[in-house]
């Protein structure tokens, strides 16, 4: 009677151990990814099968792009603050508001242009097939996103 009960519980223990072993083995790779490097870039390396050299070049380009991006975002924030002040002062579209809106749109267009340049640079650094896949994916998530429909949600 004792031996079958031992087998009964041993079977359950084997199932739990197998589950934990597979889960640990499967997720250990993504856990190791986090420290040391930016997880987002580590994901990019894994997703688009980049070599170490390609990854290094993309990381450098990414850093340069982010530095410029932060500066452009700061300018957009300043422009938005100025626009907010103008909007609060009147209930009509004044020439100043028109000018501020146009400048804000220009800044956004510049941001998008720089962003697209960065995407092209990154895609050129990747192997051709992966570069094409990256471009299609990143454009669908950024410039080709339907921002108009997002505004209604």
């Amino acid at each position, binding site marked *: *009677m004792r*031996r*079958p*009960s031992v*087998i*009964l519980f*041993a*079977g*359950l223990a*084997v*199932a*739990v*151990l*197998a*589950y*934990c*072993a*597979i*889960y640990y*083995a*499967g*997720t250990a790779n*993504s856990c190791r990814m986090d420290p040391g490097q930016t*997880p*987002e*870039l*580590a*994901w*990019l390396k894994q*997703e688009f099968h980049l070599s170490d050299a390609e990854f290094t070049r993309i990381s450098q380009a*990414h850093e340069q*792009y*982010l530095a410029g*991006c932060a500066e452009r*975002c700061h300018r*957009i924030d300043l422009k938005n603050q100025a626009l907010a002040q103008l909007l609060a002062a009147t209930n009509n579209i004044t020439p100043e508001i028109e000018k501020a809106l146009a400048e804000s749109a220009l800044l*956004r267009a510049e*941001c998008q242009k720089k*962003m697209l340049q*960065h*995407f092209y640079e990154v895609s050129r650094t990747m192997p051709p097939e992966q570069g094409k896949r990256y471009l299609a994916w*990143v454009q669908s*998530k*950024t410039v080709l*996103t339907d*921002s108009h429909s*997002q*505004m209604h949600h």
Partner: protein
Amino acid sequence: MKAENPMQSDEPLRQVLHKWKVDAKLPPRFQEQVWRRIERSEPQVQVPAWMLLFHRLTAALARPSLAVSYVTILLLAGLLAGYWQVRIARAHNDEALSSRYVQMVAPFQNPHR
């Protein structure tokens, strides 16, 4: 008042009973049915379902072939469940990291900004 002897008064009845013979046959499996009715009338001990299952399982696991199958099936179930969970976790992780990458390279795309 003198009491009447019951043995004397029952004497005719005893004689009649002595002569009486039962010719009717008993129904088939009469004895078995009687025992069943006795069993049913006795209060039954309620065994919990999990205890019953446990006893049946342990009884089955006494056979080596069944024991091996049982452990193998549970091992496979554990492996499959783990693999399935890893796939879900990886998909979630990939989704989160790809969203963070997009957010990083296109911060002004966010409508909540």
